[in-house]
């Protein structure tokens, strides 16, 4: 156990002669730093947190229940709306699970297109994190840069599927529409524009002394704690645990791409932040490789228009922007899934807050919460 200089014990009342008491502090659900509707019930003693109780469910839409009465084609639309910052990943996880139970083979070109879209969406999603985390800590400018670049990714998505946030682009069997030479040129243009921007981000925020002080020794999660609480994605890798579904259980041909998995050293807020910045670089590499191996061919498998899955159960998971997103699907042979469960990475990542916030200062709550990068749409489902 390392000694955290930011932790301190409350002043004892016996020696000072003052009467002290703990205070219950409500943070949220309408608080700009909670990135949605999350309520944190904080019991504080002076500046130090004694107990933290995250309260969720404000955005619960009962997606899993809804899906039991929707066809598989309609299911993609609902899956989109879980983690709305990286809807492509949700579509992908849902479709992979449906295809696995169906035993469908996805054409090569569709697989490459899926990789391109998922990685571009990862960049867009991490850019939101980069921008909003800066704001959480008190740096407003990076947000403007991040959203300028994100806009370009969203324009690319709009070009290929017409939507900017909830795409419904990846469908069971393949993808909805093909891309043309113009799109590829625009995508390469974006990648060339984006690569030097990443260096700019490092000078702007990553190695900014104030930012370093606010994040480098704060919210440390040891590898053991991270695994015990089931963290996944950049939050797990920032603690130095090398687990990336893209390499552990490759899907969509990820084993053919050359990329490294970003690992942190200490598991601090800064490590979690920097893992995401490095991941953006790796995503650029993957998209470049994917664009170069895009061969002509079908984009959709020959499947019936109305899908009816054989009775059985399947589980498939992917490395979404925020972690290990799994879809467990049970079919009884009907038009709708009998039961469908999302292993939502944000939901599981958020639970650790009740352990790691204890002993921290109130001012660090935002830094720790922001570094976990949650999307409440997925936490509450």
């Amino acid at each position, binding site marked *: 156990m390392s000694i955290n200089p930011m932790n301190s014990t409350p002043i004892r009342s016996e020696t000072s002669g003052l009467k002290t008491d703990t205070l219950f502090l409500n943070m949220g659900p309408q608080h700009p730093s909670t990135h949605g509707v999350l309520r944190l019930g904080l019991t504080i003693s002076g500046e130090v947190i004694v107990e933290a109780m995250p309260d*969720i*469910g404000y955005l*619960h839409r*009962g997606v*899993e*229940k809804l899906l*039991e*009465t*929707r*066809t598989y084609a309609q299911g993609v639309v609902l899956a989109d709306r879980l983690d709305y910052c990286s809807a492509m990943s949700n579509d992908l996880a849902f479709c992979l699970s449906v295809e*696995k*139970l169906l035993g469908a083979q996805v054409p090569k070109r569709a697989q490459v297109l899926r990789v391109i879209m998922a990685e571009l969406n990862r960049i867009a999603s991490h850019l939101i994190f980069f921008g909003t985390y800066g704001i959480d800590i008190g740096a407003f400018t990076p947000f403007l840069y991040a959203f300028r670049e994100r806009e370009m990714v969203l324009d690319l998505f709009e070009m290929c599927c017409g939507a900017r946030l909830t795409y419904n682009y990846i469908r069971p069997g393949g993808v909805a529409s093909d891309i043309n030479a113009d799109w590829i040129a625009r995508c390469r243009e974006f990648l060339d524009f984006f690569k030097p921007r990443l260096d700019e981000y490092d000078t702007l925020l990553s190695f900014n002394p104030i930012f370093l002080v606010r994040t480098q020794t704060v919210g440390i999660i040891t590898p053991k704690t991270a*695994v*015990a*609480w*089931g963290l996944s994605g950049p939050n797990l890798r920032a603690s130095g*645990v090398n*687990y990336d579904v893209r390499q*552990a*259980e490759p899907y969509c041909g990820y084993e053919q791409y050359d990329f490294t998995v970003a690992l942190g050293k200490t598991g601090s807020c800064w490590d979690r932040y920097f893992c995401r910045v490095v991941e953006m670089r790796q995503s650029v590499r993957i998209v470049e490789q994917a664009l170069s191996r895009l061969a002509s061919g079908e984009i959709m498998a020959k499947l*019936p*228009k*109305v899908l*009816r899955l*054989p*009775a*059985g*159960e*399947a*589980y498939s998971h992917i490395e979404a922007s925020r972690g*290990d997103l*799994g879809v*467990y699907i*049970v079919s*009884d*042979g*009907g*038009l*709708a899934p*009998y*039961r469908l*469960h999302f*292993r939502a990475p944000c*939901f*599981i990542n*958020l*639970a*650790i807050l009740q*352990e790691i916030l204890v002993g921290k200062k109130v001012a660090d709550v935002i830094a720790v919460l922001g570094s976990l990068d949650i999307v409440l749409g997925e936490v*509450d*489902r």
Partner: protein
Amino acid sequence: MTREKVLSDILAQVPGASAAAAPVKDYPTVRLSQPSDLPTAARLLKDELGFDYLEMVTAVDWLGPTKTEGFLPAVTPIPFAAKAPALPVTPAAGPDIAYRPVLDLLWSFGNLKTHLKVFLRLEVSREKPEVPSLTGLFPAADWQERETFDLFGVRFSGHPNLTKILTPDFLQGHPLLKDYVHQPDEFDAD
């Protein structure tokens, strides 16, 4: 260590465990015979086989399909053909599916080194669903067990804070149970 080895290790060391008749596709799936075997199996997985990553806790209610009246419009195989008969939304129970009044609980454990995954399942009665909590072994079970309690009503004995988590406080019942009655509203399909 291979999938078969993991499966045989668990079957040999956990009393009453058997390979599940209907496994999760492509993954080793073990069916436990009674709730008291769960901590034994989880401890074996964690301490001896290296499955220290609790990935998922969830459940399935096997009572029967949700009634889709009001939810799902009739689907025809050829959308623009006038006379095409609508497909039945839910099939009659076939030989593969046995609807029965049980809750089927599911745990998924991962090994981050060998990248293997194993599923444990356990049937409990719908009337009094109760199983031991795994929060002592895996803190990750904390919220996922609360979720399963909230949506299915499964009581995890030994859980330090088994309260509702996703649904609002005023909501009574457990919405993912299959006997949940749908209240018709203006958003229903015709």
